[in-house]
């Protein structure tokens, strides 16, 4: 399950790819014109750089849900939070297992949905002046 393309991956790259004209095509275009197998060299999840072949391999290992595939390959955990890849993977699961895409459970959307800077989010924090170390409950 090594995923050689993952190292050195930069969010910037993923963000650039998703802007502009390509965006319109890739997510909204109907997929019915694609025949099984025609995606073999296609990157299914661009944020995490996961190919169709990798997804099929993991499904064949017995991981038959979007949640399970997500946890093996990180599909849906990147910058776009699965906007692009989840529908494609649902279709691959349908092809491989016969479980209809419409019956597959989508992973729960997680905030902030769009990447936001720590500094910006933190400016809404409580900013309590009490910074004393009084907690014996603290855990890691």
């Amino acid at each position, binding site marked *: 399950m090594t995923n050689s393309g993952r*190292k050195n991956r930069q969010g910037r790259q993923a963000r650039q790819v998703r802007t502009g004209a390509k965006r319109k095509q890739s997510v909204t275009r109907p997929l019915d014109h694609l025949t099984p197998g025609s995606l073999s060299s296609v990157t299914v999840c661009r944020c995490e750089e996961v190919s169709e072949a990798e997804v099929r391999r993991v499904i064949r290992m017995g991981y038959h849900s979007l949640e399970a595939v997500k946890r093996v390959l990180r599909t849906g*955990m990147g910058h776009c*939070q699965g906007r692009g890849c989840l529908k494609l993977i649902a279709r691959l699961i349908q092809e491989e297992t016969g479980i209809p895409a419409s019956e597959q459970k989508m992973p729960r959307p997680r*905030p902030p949905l769009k990447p936001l*800077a720590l*500094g910006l989010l*933190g400016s809404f924090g409580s900013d309590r002046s009490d*910074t004393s*170390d009084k907690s014996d409950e603290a855990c*890691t």
Partner: protein
Amino acid sequence: MKRSADVVVIGAGVIGAATGYYLAKKGLKVLVLERDFPCAGSTGRCIGGIRAQFSHDLTIRVMMESVRMFRGLADELGEDVEWFQGGYLFLAFDEKRKQAFLDAIAIQKTYGLDVSYIAPDECEKIAPGLDPTGLIGGAYCPTDGQANPFKVTYGYLEGIKRLGGGLVVGCEVKQVNKKGDRVISVTDAKGDEYACDMLLNAAGSWADEVGTMAGVKVPVTADRHESLVTEAVERVFDPMLVDYRSDGCYFVQHSGTGHFIGCYTPVPLVPGHNVDATDEFITEMPRRMVRLVPKLAGVKVLRQWAGSYEMSPDGNPLCGETPVRGLYVSTGMSGHGFMFAPALGKLMAEQMTAGRASIPLDEFFLSRSFGKAEAMK
């Protein structure tokens, strides 16, 4: 349908997977039953930290063994588990915390752990960018580290399959069947029965429910802990930073990808299985991270989520035999299940097959009385 195995494990989190693997290595046929999918519970929600800096003797010994095993886990499992020895740096902002660290270090050193109390300027060297305001020192162990919880769990599960065992997903155990005082099988929601000589309850924060099916009280309670992950950035520092203040936090930069991942312990605790994300966390956690390391202000948050710690009464694991013969338990990891898994999995496999582990686990036994709590939870 009826299947049988030497050992049935309930729960495909890292504890069930690791224990199942070391049992399979002893030649036993292992079946892991999972209600949802592997890592669906606490394992898949943890941030992947691994440390031997604890205050309880047995925890230190087990965790030193676990760290040793993590080092060789990629070879053992044939899977890059992304082990990275970046260390843990616990920060002290007052004398009371400093003393607690010094007391723990004294115990840790008796077992030969490479750990020391260091001055603020040394903390800054280990964690460049750390704001030393109010800092009076830190406890640092360079041999602590991190790994990928998913890869470790899947590595163990694939190992079980290679050794002739199996994983059954979508299998929710509803009933534990006994003959006299001995467990003989379990039945799932679909009515399928799995016969076994030994049954391991590794159901994490649901282990109390599984215990009840067998008439065994397993005192675990779920506490919600929230986490977040940022985009990947170039390397900033290696160790896990732990800030124990009441509005503190802990976070680490992932070794391979460069994501920052972290969480904090809410005060007061939030009991229950609810894993919803909150607005409070998504604003508080960034504030606390930026206060500690100001230069992270521009790094973007990708996602927040929540998971359950399965808490035992004293913060230490609940392991070993139960009053029902053939039924074993391994849960109550209290937030440390991932880091415990290799050593505790191996030791529990010894306990289950030989009746005694090479590091005796008595102080973690379900039958113990719950006294002194872990000081470095």
